[in-house]
């Protein structure tokens, strides 16, 4: 709690500083930190640690390499509509080398990379975007005369952490797809992921492109706790990739109820039914797309939300490999044998029989009550009369009445 109190202490100098540095109000900054903490599934109080880490302005040097890719990962990160996200990316980290964003060019750029690596030896974060061609010693992708293989090995050697962003860097992604021609046993350039080239596991943030928050949360986790988040066996952070898309899908109720879109534009598709039969790979793809809105443009802004089946881009062996409209393999759920009705009965008005039965019960009860009341009244009157008759004497009734009182 102490840390949280510290955060909300408005007189604290660092907060003023961060307001200026990030050009964002304190409230928005704390909301951002809380969002990240929640994304990572951290316990309460972690947002304070996150805020402190970002405030501290110990911006780690980040070297960002591009290989066989479309720059979609970088684009998605920069095109995030959240007003200050790009600001944060550029300000939380010190992006010392990024081929798309840096102003420098040619040998000047390569010199900047080498200088940053030297100055932050063992402390910088290496981010790799794109697959690495391995066929023919990797001659299919060269930067400054250096092959992608050499470059990634050189940069990874002294890096504190290596993060592979996007499906291409994670396992090869689309460039690694084997063409359907006879005799082909690999993609034309032998594209591979970072882990394969380095021969050691790295953190992967697959997706085409991945949700920027998943990347950002991983970096902030590193900043906050000095280590990378817990990952699954494919190197994906568990906070984002431990659940099937299908499990939390907004169309899941339609799946359970057996309501499927059978083709694009049919009545079911127009009503937002489940896309399973159009080949949605949600049931075999691990990612948080269904719970974390993409690109800050609001919820529903993801393939399934827009009416297109998930292609499984975060899942090796599914995305870019299985045909888009091939029906997914169910990993943990099979549809029920029985489905609830689509049209729900609204209930019927009183039938003659039931209304008569209710009336009969009420009538019988009322009649019995009246009769009984009348009898009780009559016996009371009789008793009173007898009591009056006995009054004054030592009648048995009176003594009983007295004893009773």
């Amino acid at each position: 709690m102490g840390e949280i109190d510290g955060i909300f202490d408005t007189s604290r100098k660092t907060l003023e500083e961060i307001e200026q540095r990030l050009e964002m109000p304190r409230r928005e900054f704390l909301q951002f930190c809380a969002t990240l903490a929640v994304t990572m599934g951290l316990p309460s109080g972690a947002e304070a640690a996150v805020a402190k880490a970002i405030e501290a302005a110990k911006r780690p040097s980040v070297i960002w390499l591009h290989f066989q890719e479309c720059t979609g990962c970088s684009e998605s990160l920069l095109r995030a509509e959240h007003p200050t996200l790009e600001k944060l990316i550029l300000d939380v980290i010190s992006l010392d080398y990024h081929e798309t964003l840096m102003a420098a060019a040619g040998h000047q750029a390569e010199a900047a990379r080498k200088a940053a690596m030297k100055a932050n030896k063992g402390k910088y974060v290496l981010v790799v975007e794109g697959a690495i061609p391995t066929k023919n010693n990797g001659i299919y992708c060269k930067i400054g005369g250096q092959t992608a293989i050499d470059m990634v090995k050189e940069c990874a050697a002294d890096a504190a952490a290596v993060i592979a962003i996007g499906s291409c860097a994670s396992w090869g992604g689309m460039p690694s797809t084997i063409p359907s021609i006879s005799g082909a046993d690999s993609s034309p350039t032998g594209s591979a992921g970072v882990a394969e080239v380095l021969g050691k596991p790295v953190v992967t943030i697959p997706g085409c492109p991945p949700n920027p928050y998943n990347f950002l949360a991983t970096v902030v986790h590193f900043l906050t706790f000095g280590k990378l988040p817990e990952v699954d066996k494919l190197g994906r952070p568990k906070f984002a990739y431990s659940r099937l898309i299908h499990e939390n899908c907004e169309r899941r109720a339609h799946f359970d109820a057996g309501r499927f879109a059978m083709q694009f534009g049919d009545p079911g598709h127009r009503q937002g039914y489940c896309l399973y039969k159009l080949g949605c790979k949600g049931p075999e793809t691990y990612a948080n797309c269904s719970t974390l809105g993409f690109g800050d443009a609001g919820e529903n802004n993801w393939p399934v939300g827009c009416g297109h089946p998930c292609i499984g881009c975060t899942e090796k062996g599914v995305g870019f490999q299985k045909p888009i409209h091939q029906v997914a393999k169910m990993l943990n759920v099979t549809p029920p044998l029985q489905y609830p009705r689509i049209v729900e009965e609204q209930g019927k008005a009183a039938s003659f029989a039931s209304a008569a039965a209710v009336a009969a019960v009420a009538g019988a009860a009322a009649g019995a009550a009246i009769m009984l009341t009348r009898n009780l009244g009559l016996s009371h009157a009789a008793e009173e009369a007898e009591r009056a008759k006995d009054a004054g004497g030592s009648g048995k009734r009176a003594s009983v009445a007295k004893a009773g009182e």
Partner: protein
Amino acid sequence: MANHQHAAPAPVGGSLVNIVTLSCGVLIALMAAILVVRFLFGLGAVTNLNDGYPWGIWIAVDVVIGSAFACGGFSVAMLVYIFNKGEYHPLVRPALLASLFGYTLAGAGVIFDLGRWWNVWNMFWPGSINPNSVMFEVAVCITLYIVVMWIEFSPVVLEKLGKEDARKKVSKAMFFIIALGTVLPMMHQSSLGTLLVVMGGQVHPLWQTPALPLLYLLSAIFMGYAVVLFESCLTSTAYRRKLEMQMLTPMAKIMLGILAVFIVVRLGDVIVRGALPKAFAPSVEALMFWLEMACFIAPLVLIGAEANRRNPARLFLAGILLMLGGALMRLSGFLIGYETGGDFNYFPTLAEVLVTAGLFAVEVLGYIIITRRFPVLPREDVQAAH
């Protein structure tokens, strides 16, 4: 209590076959037949329940109203054991018997109403319980109370069977059981009101209030006394016994006291929340509200005066009116003033009505059999000789 000498309870005796028990038997047979269909083909086969009205009369009447009617045991036990009014002791056993049946059948009613009743054990399974649920509180509390009441009633059975030793052993723990038997109904009777609070705006403003738990508890207590008035007058008349006026008259005064507090809270709450204008709108709900209020206020007029409380006819009528008022309040909250939107509609089917009637028949039949064969009511000849 030592200074109160009462006639020991004794079986009433007599034949078990008469027009009332036979009628009960017919109703029970009808219920059994409907329940066979219900359990084989599901709720949809016999009820009018739907997504808008998932609770019908099996819950609103059998459970909510039924358990309130069964508060006689708790109300009288509270009077005798908590407030140490030993003079009411002879009322305890018959009241407890009625409560016992009321609650046990309410528990059965819940099972009838559960769509997937075979999952009911989850309610008590530590791994599947949800301790934050109001329904869980009600379910566990009622179940526990049913068990507690059977223990409270066990001396009657043990006496009949002549197991004196066992009876003495049970008696030693009885103070604890009786305490539990007073606390538990207070918990779940108020929680039955909380059930409606949870339903929020679906309940008409005349019945939706944060004070519902208090209202349900207070009304359950006076309904308990009302049921005792009803039950005692009915039993005395049916068995041609002397009316227990020496106990009923002062008890009615206590009942009126609680009723007065209740009316103040009920009306005060409606006024404070600004819901009173709704009571003057031309609607079924407004009509039900005034019917209910009339049932609550009429007893004050009927038996407000001490002399009138000596008249069994007035006591009996007041008891019926209060039972009816409390029942209407519950029925309005759970069904009549309950609206989920859309075109949803509910009226019980003939089958639902027959099952409810059958449950009440079980209660009446059970009461007759047990009072005739077990020592529940005070021995009449001793009193007459007195």
